[in-house]
């Protein structure tokens, strides 16, 4: 029989047998890790037009989240405050600070400050802040310890699996309604039992069907 292939090709099946599993596993791991929103989205921290520090306002000064994001309990969106909200204090406080130049200009001209949105859900996912707050999900459960962030960064993946993990088992993420904005609430270690809370009028029953969120 004629020789068609050089001798080194005898090793090819062995190399393939040894190499293919390694390559396959590596490929699966690479996709599993790098295509995950936990890798691609968590830690997103855009530069904002004003060096506003949540750590100073919500942390050190202890301001309530709802002072600025005031629509969060009534509407689907947690409002980005208008410049006038800033000026409630900054008309009196730090009036000369160069870091607040943009805010003062905005207040004078009426042009809004171009804040950059950090937490963005896709258009095909319907989300309503008010129902989550009514159920007793705290701010920090989804947004992390904003009171420790100088500039806000995305703390959670906001992926569909992440949503469903809570929708399938909401109880550990619930807290009393007066603790919603408490950044120190320990989700893992507390003896709160939602079904024994006299302030709750009905059980939490989050949707798990497709059209719950994809309407």
């Amino acid at each position, binding site marked *: *029989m004629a020789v*068609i292939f050089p001798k080194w090709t005898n090793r090819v099946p062995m190399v393939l047998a040894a190499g293919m599993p390694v390559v396959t596993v590596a490929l699966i791991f690479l996709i599993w890790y790098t295509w995950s929103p936990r890798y691609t989205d968590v830690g997103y921290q855009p530069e904002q037009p004003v060096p506003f520090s949540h750590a100073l306002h919500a942390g050190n000064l202890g301001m309530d989240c709802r002072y600025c994001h005031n629509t969060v309990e009534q509407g689907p969106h947690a409002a980005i405050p208008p410049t006038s909200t800033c000026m409630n204090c900054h008309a009196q406080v730090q009036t000369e600070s160069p870091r607040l130049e943009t805010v003062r200009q905005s207040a004078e001209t009426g042009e809004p400050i171009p804040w950059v949105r950090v937490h963005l859900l896709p258009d095909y996912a319907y989300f309503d802040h008010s129902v989550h707050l009514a159920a007793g999900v705290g701010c920090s459960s989804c947004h992390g310890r904003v009171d420790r962030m100088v500039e806000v960064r995305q703390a959670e*993946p906001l*992926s*569909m*699996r992440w949503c*469903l993990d809570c929708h399938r088992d909401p109880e550990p993420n619930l807290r009393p309604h007066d603790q919603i904005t408490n950044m120190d609430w320990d989700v893992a270690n507390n003896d709160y039992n939602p079904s024994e809370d006299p302030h709750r009028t009905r059980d939490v029953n989050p949707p798990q069907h497709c059209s719950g969120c994809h309407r």
Partner: protein
Amino acid sequence: MAVTITDNSNFDPVDGRAPLILGDDSFAGITQAVARPMEDPAPTALKVVFGIGLMLLGLLGVSLAYLIYKGTGIWGLNNPVGWGWAIVNFVFWVGIGHAGTLISAILFLFRQKWRTSINRAAEAMTIFAVMCALIFPGVHVGRVWVAYWLLPLPNQMAMWPNFRSPLLWDVFAVSIYGTVSILFWYTGLIPDLATMRDRSKGALAKKLYGLFALGWRGSNRHWQNYERAYLILAGLSTPLVLSVHTIVSFDFAVSQLPGWHTTIFPPYFVAGAIFSGFAMVLTLMIPVRSLFNLQHIITTRHLENTAKIILLTGSLVGYAYAMEFFIAWYGGNAYESYAFVNRMFGPYAWAYWTMVSCNVITPQIFWFKKARTNVYILFVASIFVNIGMWFERFVITVTSLHRDFLPSSWDYFHPTFWDVSTFLGSFGLFLVMFCLFLRFLPAVAIAEVKAVTPAADPHHHPHAENGDDGHDEGGH
């Protein structure tokens, strides 16, 4: 050996059977005859068919591109008829695919030696038909780029297919069928690929055939492993012949729609699939054998046996049609009786009677030996069966849907240009693949055909004169 029998369809059970391979049945002669289509210049007829196939394939490409760009709204789907030609074509092509595995696996286990002349081409037909079939549910999902959601892959959405849905079972059934068919076909090809490696002149051809022949040298040990692997794959494929179309029928039967929700569907669909597959085998093998002068390998007897299977399965299908109507009446369900009366005399009566005349009446001519042994009658009848089996799926899908429980939503299905072009285009894919197969792979299983010749079964005493192979007990 210069036996000159031209008609081996006559055999006497007492005197013994006429040989399966006529004319030059020496090993060299068979190899020569099968390899010639790949080595001689391509005949004009093959070039013409390939050209037509390429044009239709282009049409398929354009149709699918426009579909992906625009969405399934370009088809004639409307509100009650949510499953139109795409599902009809899917079931049509999957059904055709059934003959290949039946010939290669079940007939192998039953030691039907006549399978050897047609099993290679029938398996190729199966694989190409499954490829055509997979296009349709693949694009019918609408968002083609997320078609992988059909598979249970772990993902960031924590989304999982619905295991209670027969549509998911279908994904498994068809993909397993496709995989096993390809493995079975390839395993059978290995000795023949080695033959082609040794015959071919070009360096690239030698390398390619050599690569896929996996270093086959025809040693005793090779043959032993090969035979064992082939038997295992035949065993694996056998239940698949029955399971695939059973599960395709579940797509309909598991739903609650009158006209679909019947227990007869699984056996009825399997019989229909084998029926259509064997018809397609005839449609393909009759031109191929005359184009490549293979009449002495794919003989009249092979065609006649195929016709007998068509007669059997066609009658089974006819029985199933009758039984559906009987149960619709006997079951006493008003909706179901209405669905069947509407099928026969409603707005789609034309489709129903086309189906009945092609599928039930046409194969009855195969009761006559003249019809079973005349290639022209066989070819025309096989075309009718192909048409009839497409209409069967059309009748089942569309007539059951177009009048549902609410008369206010009744509607009539009109196919659009894109329905027709996608269907014709799928024939382009099939023709192109089949022409390439004929040109680059041995269309007949050379090694297996040799095994059914007298030379493969040597005896110590001379052959009897009467055409018998000289067997008697303990004569080895």
